[in-house]
């Protein structure tokens, strides 16, 4: 097995191969476009014969996420992937993962909705991923890949963060990233943890109770409200630590920017081009790409808001992340939204027009 290979891969394929290389213990999924290649690639690779990774096609998304719940509860690195309707069906299970403080990886390759919607790319599940989705006061660590290389690299990042904090993590991709092919360097091979290593590293895991310790119980249930409040506050305190330490964003030509674009995922990739085009027209545009959608890079945005005259948030939805950008901006400058819906993806020129017209509006005043 070679350590590093450069391959031309779809985002979904890169994610699957990276999971095997990471030493993932189990994948449980149910087919849905535009992410079925994840399960198909894993089945074709048959990692159960090499690394011992379990791969299963579940009978439904609720079954798949509950398989993930079971695997996570015994300290394994387990994951699932889906899109729109399937992710909605998984929400109860995701909430249980959060409540029982279990690390796991959920991948949403977004398509347009609501309902059965469309199989074309979209970013309309931002609210669902970032604001809760399931019931109760909880958070997911949400990573937004902007290309195929990120799909490969974020597997280990997501698992590492999930296990460090015992919080489920989500990779929030979209159909474009799942389907497009790019050259990608797959991450190095890591071996799966042994049973003994799991029992040692994750003393909370349900792996069979030896005489030397008391029993491990993975549950989210607590009927005593005082205890439940203490548990919930402890979780919130952990979320605060994640916000302080794990917020990630990427800036493109923001140092001298007088107007700011904010975009995530595939949108952030396309609009680097917009920034270049605007600068040719004499408007010093900069781009900020949140890499973690939760924790959200509020401070990075707030800092830039001090130097620009306006902000344009570009998303493949009707205006979701824009709410978090407005909170970060605190009313200091106008924050507008430009979006396309239903699976339509805009061109860099289209965004250039939107940016220039906002620029003119703001600077005419």
């Amino acid at each position, binding site marked *: 097995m070679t350590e590093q290979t450069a391959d031309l891969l779809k985002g979904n394929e890169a994610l699957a191969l990276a999971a095997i290389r990471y030493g993932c213990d189990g994948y449980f999924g149910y087919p849905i476009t535009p992410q079925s290649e994840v399960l198909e690639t894993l089945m074709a690779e048959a990692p159960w014969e090499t690394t011992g990774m379990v791969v299963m096609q*579940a009978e439904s998304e*609720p079954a798949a996420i509950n398989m993930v*719940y079971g*695997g996570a509860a015994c300290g394994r690195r387990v994951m699932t992937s889906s899109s729109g309707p399937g992710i909605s069906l998984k929400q109860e*299970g995701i909430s249980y993962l959060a409540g029982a403080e279990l690390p796991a990886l959920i991948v949403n390759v977004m398509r347009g909705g609501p309902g059965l919607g469309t199989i074309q790319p979209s970013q309309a599940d931002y609210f669902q991923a970032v604001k809760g989705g399931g019931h109760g006061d909880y958070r997911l660590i949400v990573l937004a890949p902007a290309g195929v290389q990120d799909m490969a690299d974020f597997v280990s990042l997501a698992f590492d963060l999930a296990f460090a904090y015992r919080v489920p993590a989500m990779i929030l991709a979209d159909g474009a990233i799942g389907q497009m092919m790019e050259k990608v360097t797959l991450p190095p091979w890591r071996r799966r943890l042994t049973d003994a290593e799991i029992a040692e590293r994750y003393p909370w895991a349900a792996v*069979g109770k030896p005489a030397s310790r008391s*029993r491990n119980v993975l549950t989210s249930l607590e009927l005593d409200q005082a205890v439940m409040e203490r548990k919930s506050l402890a979780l919130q305190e952990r979320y605060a630590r994640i916000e302080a330490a794990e917020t990630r964003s990427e800036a493109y030509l923001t140092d001298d920017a007088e107007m700011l674009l904010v975009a995530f995922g595939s949108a952030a990739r396309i609009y680097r081009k917009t920034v270049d085009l605007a600068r040719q027209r004499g408007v010093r545009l900069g781009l900020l790409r949140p890499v973690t959608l939760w924790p959200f890079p509020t401070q990075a945005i707030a800092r830039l808001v001090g130097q620009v005259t306006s902000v344009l948030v570009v998303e493949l939805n009707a205006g979701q992340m824009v709410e978090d950008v407005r909170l970060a901006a605190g009313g200091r400058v106008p924050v507008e939204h430009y979006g396309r819906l239903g699976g339509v993806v805009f061109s860099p020129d289209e965004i250039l027009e939107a940016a220039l017209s906002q620029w003119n509006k703001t600077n005419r005043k």
Partner: protein
Amino acid sequence: MKRTSTDTIRREGRVVHRRTPLLTDAHMHYCPGCNHATVHRLVAEVLDEMGLQADAIGIGSVGCSVFIYNYIDIDWIQASHGRAPAVATAVKRLNPSRLVFTYQGDGDLAAIGTAETIHACNRGENIAIIYVNNSIYGMTGGQMAPTTPLGMRTSTTPQGRDARLHGYPLDICRLLRRLSGVGFMARRRVDTPRHIRTAKQAIREAFECSLAGRGTAVVEIMAECLTNKF
């Protein structure tokens, strides 16, 4: 047959009954007459007698038995309503040497969890399912379950279950029996000492079946819910 008096037994120091070592000291929350307590004890006894404490992973469900993890001293995972067989599937596949079993009520297993039950059994997952059928939703206060007999009054069938309104009672084990993945199946009662002993034997055989990798083992225990009977 001559009966031995308790005094004689005490004097001779013979052990006729002992506390089940795998049952914890926690005070059980079950109503008087509830069969969950009996079945918990049988599960704990079998685990103890088979020496499985260190090798067992139990999957609890949502229903009156949700706190089973407080009573039986092994590692537990508390599953969401109906999904215990899916949870158990992954736990067993990732820990093939362990005894993995679920403990579920009839609402959990035969209503909301029907798909997970059928598919785990159909795949022949090497898990055991302890299925306590009290023909009612106990925990939520006595609503109709899929297993509720015709004519039986519950809080959601106050006139008695009517097939035209609510359909017929579901005997899910009759469906499961036909699946090739099922390696062991038994239906038992826990209403008399003799029946309790045969129920315990069935639980033991179910655990043996799943440890031997012979497919899914299902033990249905016909139980009583005195509190919620109209």
